């Protein structure tokens, strides 16, 4: 059974799951992470980013096309939390 848009198999909003993962990485409360937060705002450095991507890949069973050498050229927008969530929803839908 495929998930409906914006919702993963367990019914939790994808957005909330992503925010939970990012918040854990940033050592923040999920309430402090909003859709317009950037990784820089949240204090997530390059290692934190690759660890977040790993956790997201594990959580959603997807592969995120992200190369830390060329973050701008990757087909995955990390400019803010909303862009990350949108990218993940697209990858889940294409799974």
């Amino acid at each position: 059974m495929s998930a409906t848009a914006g919702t993963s198999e367990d019914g939790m909003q994808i957005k909330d799951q992503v925010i939970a993962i990012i918040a854990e990485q940033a050592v923040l409360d999920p309430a402090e992470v909003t859709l317009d937060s950037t990784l820089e705002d949240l204090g997530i450095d390059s290692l934190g980013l690759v660890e977040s991507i790993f956790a997201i890949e594990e959580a959603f069973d997807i592969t995120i096309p992200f190369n830390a050498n060329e973050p701008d050229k990757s087909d995955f927008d990390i400019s803010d939390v909303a862009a990350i969530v949108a990218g993940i929803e697209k990858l889940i839908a294409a799974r």
Partner: protein
Amino acid sequence: MKRVVITGMGTINALGHTVPDTFAALAEGRCGIGPLMFRDADRLAIKIGAQVQNFDAAGRFTRQQLSLYDPFTQFALGAAQEAIDQSGLDLQGHLAERAGVILGTAGGGVSTWDDSYRTVYEDGKNRVHPFVVPRLMNNAAASHISMQFGIKGPSFTVSTACASSNHAMAQAFQMVRAGLAPVMISGGSESMLCFGGVKAWEGLRVMSPDGCRPFSATRNGMVQGEGAAIFVFEDLDHAKARGADILCEIRGFAMTSDAADVVMPSQDGAARAMAGALADGGINPEDVGYINAHGTGTAANDKTECAAIHDVFGDQATKLMVSSTKSMHGHVIGGTGAIELLACVMALRDGVIAPTIGYDRPDPECALDVVPNQARRADIDVALSNAFAFGGLNAVLALARL
């Protein structure tokens, strides 16, 4: 040339999580060897080892730190904290820029390799944690000590199997002696006690299934341990100027290579290393009161080492004390020389000679005073610490009471 002293020491090993706890265990002759406890241990043929017990990693480190720290790094950081605290050094400014970290390890992040390979080979996953490489690299422990304490001078890792720590400490000693650095942090760390790590050693068929009994006629192999010991090596003048508590002097060292067999020890290589350390330190053989032996508990090592001691010390050989503390903390492979140096400091500073425990029957090929089973009080002036590695690479350090 500068004189070099030790002004701080720290350890995490199967006998204790501090130097005082470890000294107490060594003086009691307590054995840190027990059943191995980790995933798949039931599939091992060799089921014993000297594991670090009750190590509260989560209490010592943050989640973010733990994602980057293999156990060998965790042990090294814990030991370094104790050593630097004891030294009382304030590693800031010009001193921080000149001080360095040289550690020994044979395997680096072995359990990180093991877990990562299990994930891709056994669990069939196609993705591993992004920090596998920075966790497993052999220099991880040295690098994290440098980062944690802001040490900005020459730092690197030496890997010479079971002599890694002694080669590392010899290098750090040379740097201070030559005036290249006023302070060096040195020692070693190892954590191979995981399924793949012990399996690899089983393959060589040198491991004892029931205990480590160096020099005893009943010995039947080595028992692996894990842990770290870290020291602060300091220019004597620098230490005196700041009123540091000086634990002992590092007087000399030597390194030799057997250029022979990859695993069988060489009497000549071992003897030349011991004799070389005496010559380097300007030490007369009769001044040596104690040797912390390599003493692995294998048939080959112990008789070869004893023969080498006879070669170097002649009639003096039977008058000095020789013990193998591996009988208590296990063979800590690349970290073992550092942990064993603790026993030398204890002998020089506290006048307590750590015993060789598990000794139950004399072997005529190991006819030395091996301090069997019980620690002994003795005032000694000079102690040697032997390490003879697979690959035929030997390193011996000579310590002296100041």
